[in-house]
């Protein structure tokens, strides 16, 4: 996909699934995030119940340490590349955030990702399905 080297944030369209229901949202590509992170209202709209998650985890953010529920989303797809059961934390971004989550290492680690700032291209390489 085309990469704008002047952009202040690298964003990608991410499709998240629960069964056959899905939503495509724009997330920030964040190699500094351990997990995919999705806001509460997004996962709840898909039918997940983060409040009943069996597992929670402490997350360190720019503003401190918090505890957030951890889910495994049925499937996450980016540019035709999918990961099943990707560990995902449920945590809200600031209200004025223009993105609907962070695409972190729990998804990114399954691919080779090339950021060609000079060629203006972002490439995902890896297995198409897991």
């Amino acid at each position, binding site marked *: 996909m085309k990469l704008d080297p002047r952009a202040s*944030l690298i964003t990608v369209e991410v499709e998240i699934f629960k069964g056959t229901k899905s*939503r495509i949202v724009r997330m920030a590509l964040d190699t500094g*995030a351990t997990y995919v992170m999705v806001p509460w*209202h997004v996962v709840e709209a898909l039918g997940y119940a983060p409040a009943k998650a069996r597992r929670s985890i402490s997350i360190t*953010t720019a503003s401190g340490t918090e505890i957030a529920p951890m889910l495994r989303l049925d499937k996450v797809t980016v540019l035709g*590349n999918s990961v099943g059961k990707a560990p995902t934390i449920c945590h809200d971004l600031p209200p004025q955030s*223009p*993105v609907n989550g962070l695409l972190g290492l729990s998804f990114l680690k399954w691919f080779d990702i090339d950021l060609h700032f000079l060629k203006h291209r972002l490439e995902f390489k890896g297995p198409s399905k897991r």
Partner: protein
Amino acid sequence: MSAEIAARTGAVSTIEELIEHYPDEWLAIAVTAEAGGRPTSGRLVCHAKDPEEVWRRTRNWKRLYIVYAGPPLKKGYAAAF
């Protein structure tokens, strides 16, 4: 006619056209075409300034693209997650 019904019967627009037409709003779009794994056109289902309103009004849809019609970051802002 509700916005949802209008959207079901409405015209298909490119994603770029929809984003240009509803600046600084959140859009829910029923995708009709994709290229390279990215939505390229669709029908507008609803739009609002409040993202949670858009999510709440579209809970029953099977598949939607929900996007903010504005720059990833406003001028003068920087991201530090």
